[in-house]
């Protein structure tokens, strides 16, 4: 869900800036989820989301360093207003009583969404350098997805009493 970015015309510098902003958006969304979980005293999931903030910050920092090396002070043309929800986990997937498994699944969905995004963008890109860069990003998303799935596989089974049993049931039906 982006607006005002024409991937057919995008330069490598703009593509790197775009990738930085995608990571920044994801980092900020995870930070918002940290606040939400803290407010609801869900400590385990708070810690998981805090970890995700660090992970996204790490990705952002690698890309920012690459940008400095390649393009130094070249002005930035891509802005945050041009992107929406590329890799950021969806607000509506969060629940106050969510478990770590649920949080990991949320991260999985976010990585899948990002992978699909780059896959789709690649079909439009003409510049070979940008194409290589986006291919790398797309493959990294797949790698992240596998890492998260591996974490899910390591988790013990969900308790017999699930979070859904203790949370406020939707009244309307």
């Amino acid at each position, binding site marked *: *869900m*982006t*607006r005002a970015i024409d991937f057919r015309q995008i330069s490598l510098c703009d593509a790197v800036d775009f990738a930085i902003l995608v990571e920044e958006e994801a980092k900020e969304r995870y930070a*918002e*989820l940290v*606040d*939400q*979980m803290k*407010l*609801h005293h869900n400590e385990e999931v708070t810690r998981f989301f805090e970890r995700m903030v660090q992970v996204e910050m790490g990705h952002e920092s690698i890309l920012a360093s690459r940008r400095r090396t390649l393009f130094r002070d070249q002005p930035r043309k891509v*802005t*945050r*207003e041009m992107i*929406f*929800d590329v890799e950021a986990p*969806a*607000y*509506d*997937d*969060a*629940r*106050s009583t*969510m478990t770590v498994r649920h949080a990991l699944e949320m991260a999985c969905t976010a990585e899948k969404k990002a992978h699909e995004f780059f896959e789709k963008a690649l079909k439009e890109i003409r510049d070979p350098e940008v194409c290589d860069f986006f291919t790398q990003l797309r493959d990294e998303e797949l790698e992240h997805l596998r890492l998260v799935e591996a974490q899910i596989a390591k988790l013990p089974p969900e308790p017999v009493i699930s979070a859904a049993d203790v949370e*406020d049931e*939707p*009244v*309307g*039906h």
Partner: protein
Amino acid sequence: MFQAKDFKSDLKPIWCPGCGDFGVVQAIYRALASVGRPPHEIAFVSGIGCSSRIPGYTTAYGFNSVHGRAIPIAQGIKLANPSLLVLVAGGDGDGFSIGGGHVAHVVRRNLDITYIVMDNQIYGLTKGQLSPTSPRGLKTVTSMYGSVEAPMNPLLNVLAYGAPFVAQGTPADMTGLSQIVEEAIRYPGFAFVNVRSPCVTYGTEADQIKEHRARMKPLQSLGHDSTDRLAAMGLAQHYCTELHTGVFYRNPTPPPTMEGQLQERQRGLADKALPRHKILDIFVQK
């Protein structure tokens, strides 16, 4: 030039995780950034309810007022200082139940105000009672056997009163929503945006963001002519069964605003106005 983050305050939202209003406030930040007015030139007024917390989450001047009274307060602000960009936010209960009487008047006066209703079809803050837009048959704590009331239709309501700009969005499409809000703010007159923002705690499972994403129908894709008020009313009749998003109606010839007319009158009467020191003489008994 402003960025969305310039409109985000340090206050952290305390809505339930999963609430649709998280997306709505993001869309508002982006719309405000595109419009480009500085935060100190914006007055954001709300009533009472979950969604009425929104002004506090922005860097604009905020007024979290009393239940159902956001519109009269916003009108006062706009008339006192017409240069301000005035936004009003609230829920369906705030806007169409306790505050319902004010809607007709703000529409007929046509002040340049943008009214954003976060319509979740239930009273969420008070733990899930029927609201004026709750669908017939909905079981809630105040309608254990299902509502026997027909919901009111916010879109048809404001269109019938003659609102010059009427739109609907959902946080399931945040890009679309921010564009709609931006368009509403830019419209020179009263603009109404109904946002179907689901209540994650008390709303129905069929009315959550994922379901919205699956069933939303952008009006643009239907080839709707947004200058055709009757066509807009026809589409608005499907409020209960369809989720149309986009601009229903935009009066291509914006009618004069109340504040504009009053300013004109003030200018016209300026010569006849008494000097300040003579004003008290009016009240002196002779």
